[in-house]
Every structure is written in structure tokens, then in C-alpha cells.
């Protein structure tokens, strides 16, 4: 029950790779800032291999800012900042990968 956040692009940083190594069932992964590039369909094979028990989120404001609205893997739920706050409350622990 850990909320993991990644804020770096998978193309320039190993943050996402390190995170994927430690994700457990019932954890959640939220991509923010440049991390949202990993939600792109083109990169989805990395994240779509994750089991169904791991929920994947991406932050709307960062997606829109980067023009990724129509490029996202359907595996990711697009959430707004208010929902981000709810996630931080829902998950007792957060591990930030930056």
C-alpha cells in the first residue's frame, strides 16, 4: 500500500526503472511532471507488463502541458491535483523517485 511517484522522463533517467523493481501488488504508481512521458503509448510496454493489482495514474495538468492528451496508454487513469491529494491520504506511505 505505497504510493510511488516518478517525476523524471524514462528516456533520461532510471527513476522509473528503479521504481518498477520495487513495486508490490496493491501499490500505486503516479507519474507527474516529466514522468508523464512514461504514460505515452509508445513507452507503455514497460508499464503495461505490470500486474492488474498495481494501479497506474498520470497527472492531468502535466499531461496537458506536454500535449500528451491523445497519446496516453489506456492503462493509466488521468487524475487532477485534487485527486492527487486524495491519493496521498488514501496511501499511508509515499516513495518519491526523483
Amino acid at each position: 500500500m505505497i504510493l510511488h511517484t516518478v517525476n523524471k522522463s524514462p528516456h533520461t533517467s532510471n527513476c522509473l526503472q528503479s521504481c518498477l523493481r520495487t513495486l508490490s501488488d496493491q501499490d500505486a504508481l503516479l507519474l507527474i511532471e516529466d514522468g508523464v512521458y512514461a504514460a505515452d503509448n509508445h513507452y507503455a510496454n514497460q508499464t503495461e507488463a505490470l500486474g492488474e493489482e498495481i494501479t497506474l495514474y498520470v497527472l492531468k495538468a502535466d499531461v496537458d502541458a506536454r500535449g500528451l492528451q491523445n497519446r496516453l496508454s489506456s492503462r493509466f487513469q488521468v487524475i487532477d491535483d485534487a485527486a492527487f491529494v486524495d491519493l496521498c491520504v488514501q496511501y499511508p506511505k509515499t516513495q518519491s523517485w526523483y
Partner: protein
Amino acid sequence: MSTTAKNILAVMRTGPYGNQTAKEALDAVLTAAAFELPLSLLFMDDGVFQLLPQQDTQGIGAKDLSATLPVLPMYDVERFYVEQSSLESRGINSAELILPVEVLDSEQVKVLFAESASILSF
């Protein structure tokens, strides 16, 4: 791998001197230790570089973090873990490190995350 219920896990993922993160992490750990909070340290990715011997920072005018890390056991901080794949991809043998560490594979890292009461991300 004994971790108490309300154990704080500090995840150390940066090299010692490329930026201030490792120094800030050590300051946070020392402060928590001074308040006798139960701490575990997990070194992974470039964080394992913080544990290499023979660090001589005189030439870059930086505080030698490797002089402070071995002091932690005196503050009752004694649970040091390193991630196996981070060591392997950097050709580092855990025996050469400046702290006595327990090497964890990725499954054991997941257990450590799950068992810890809270996480400090560095």
C-alpha cells in the same frame, strides 16, 4: 532483516557529491537518530557510491560524507541495506563498503518497503 513496527526507512539514491541530496539525507538521518527514532537506511542506484572507501574530498572542497557514515552505529543506526542489482551494475562488492551492509534482492527490497512505517525519499 529485523525492522520494528514504526521504523523509518531512508532511501538513499544519489551519489555523494554530485549534488547536495546525499548530504541533506545524512543530516536528516543524524537528526532523526539524535531523537532516537528507529531508522533503516537503504542504499540503491547511485546511492551505493556513498559507501565506497577512499573518498578524499579535499580537491573539491566538499565535506567528506564517508567520514560521517561510519559514525551512525554510535547513534544506534545499525540497519544498513544495499540493493543487489545496484551493486552488480556498478561492479561493487559489498565487502569493500565502509559500512556493514545486508544485500537485498528486489523481493527483499519490496518487503523492506512494506514493513517500514514511513519512508524518507532522497
